């Protein structure tokens, strides 16, 4: 039998119009099922996104997925507290039961619903902030929490890794129309670093707004069987085809690790550079000044760093969403801080104070944490153990209650 005969046989078997109808029906059927999947919460007993349910292993939760998690967790009358930010707020080095956001929920009580959407290396404007904004009409009594370093300028529209959530929500019409933010994003995505891949992302997000393939196949990957390989997948820990819901939450209890692992002597010099780096470009020493006599006059503000911050703060969120946003300034472990010179410690302190002040002047609320913590409270330079998680949960609970009164969510006591 020749190839031509085989081809003729296949052509004789299939009926072209029926075949094309089947293709259209199969495709359209999944588009409709995707819209249905977008409203389902598949993450039963959700506590956080793990490394196996995040881009670190090529799983990209959609904005609808996050909204569905909130809808299934929140009870009528509760104030919604959405946690964003990076690995510190995701609770790296804390078991699910030790997470700082779990402590926050316990401290706040039944009047609040705390949902943690933080991702590793995520920024203030990434996924969680988009989910909170998309839920603004459904749950107007909401508080959004994220963290940053004091002189770190925010990125409009999200970081390169996590901005898919912004464009996902944008093309599904879930975001507020905000001209200043749109201009800031348009100005940002043409820059060298940010323009890489943006066209493909926008096209795929637009296609997804019609076809809902991300919602449908994420649903399949999480519930039924996984089809996407990621570099973190480890034989013996994960089985490739297993649904992601069977993958473990790999974060250990960091407080059980000895100090040699948490604060290795081999990286001391490098980590001290990181700790100094938080403030070293924010203030310059006055060459004629005397730190001992007048420490406040010794450190001179370096304006370009702070101008970047104040300019960035202005346009990252619509004005209506700023006042319900709490920015946490993440401090470094005292294990390293106390190894700085007296001048450097003072510079670190005033940098955090200035960061908090500028975020507040920009219309947000902000607090710093970590300066009065102990080395035991930290897993490493920046992540918290269960001890630090408990302290942070207590601190933020007090602040969230105060914000709830200021925002009019609760009556004045």
């Amino acid at each position, binding site marked *: 039998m020749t190839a031509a005969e085989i081809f003729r046989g296949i052509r004789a078997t299939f009926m072209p119009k*029926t075949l094309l109808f*089947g293709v259209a029906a199969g*495709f359209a059927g*999944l588009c409709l099922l995707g819209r249905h999947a977008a409203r389902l919460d598949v993450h039963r007993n959700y506590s956080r996104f793990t490394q196996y349910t995040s*881009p670190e292993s090529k799983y990209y939760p959609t904005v609808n997925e996050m909204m569905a998690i909130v809808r299934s967790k929140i009870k009528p009358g509760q104030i919604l507290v959405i946690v964003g930010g990076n690995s510190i707020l995701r609770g790296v080095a804390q078991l699910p039961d030790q997470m700082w956001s779990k402590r926050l929920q316990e401290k706040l009580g039944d009047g609040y619903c705390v949902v943690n959407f933080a991702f590793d290396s995520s920024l203030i404007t990434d996924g969680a902030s988009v989910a909170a904004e998309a839920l603004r009409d459904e749950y107007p009594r909401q508080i959004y929490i994220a963290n940053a370093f004091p002189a770190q300028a925010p990125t409009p529209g999200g970081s390169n890794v996590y901005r898919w959530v912004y464009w996902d929500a944008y093309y599904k019409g879930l975001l507020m129309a905000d001209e200043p933010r749109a201009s800031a994003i348009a100005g940002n995505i043409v820059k060298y670093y940010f323009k890489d891949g943006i066209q*493909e992302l926008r096209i795929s997000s637009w296609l*997804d707004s019609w076809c809902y*393939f991300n919602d449908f*196949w994420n649903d399949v990957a999480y519930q039924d069987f996984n089809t*996407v390989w990621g570099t973190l997948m480890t034989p013996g820990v994960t089985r490739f085809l297993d649904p992601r819901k069977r993958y473990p939450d790999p974060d250990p209890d960091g407080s059980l690790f000895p100090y040699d692992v948490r604060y290795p002597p081999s990286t001391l010099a490098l980590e001290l550079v990181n700790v100094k780096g938080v403030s070293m470009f924010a203030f310059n020493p006055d060459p004629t000044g005397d730190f001992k006599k007048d420490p406040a006059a010794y450190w001179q503000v370096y304006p370009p760093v702070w101008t970047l911050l104040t300019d960035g703060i202005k346009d990252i969120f619509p004005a209506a969403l700023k006042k319900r946003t709490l920015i946490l300034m993440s401090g470094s472990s005292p294990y390293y801080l106390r190894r700085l010179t007296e001048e450097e410690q003072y510079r670190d302190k005033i940098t955090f104070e200035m960061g908090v002040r500028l975020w507040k002047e920009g219309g947000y609320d902000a607090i710093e944490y970590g300066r009065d913590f102990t080395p035991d409270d930290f897993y490493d330079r920046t992540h918290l153990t269960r001890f630090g998680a408990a302290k942070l949960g207590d601190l933020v609970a007090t602040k969230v209650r105060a914000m709830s009164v200021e925002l009019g969510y609760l009556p004045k006591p």
Partner: protein
Amino acid sequence: TIQSRAARQVISLLVGVAVGVFFHYLLYRLTLPV
């Protein structure tokens, strides 16, 4: 023999649906970021 018109229609429809599902999955896979 059961080359019958009805069977050809069913086969065509099922294969068509499978191809449509595959295209939908292909969109998902091809648009996943690096």
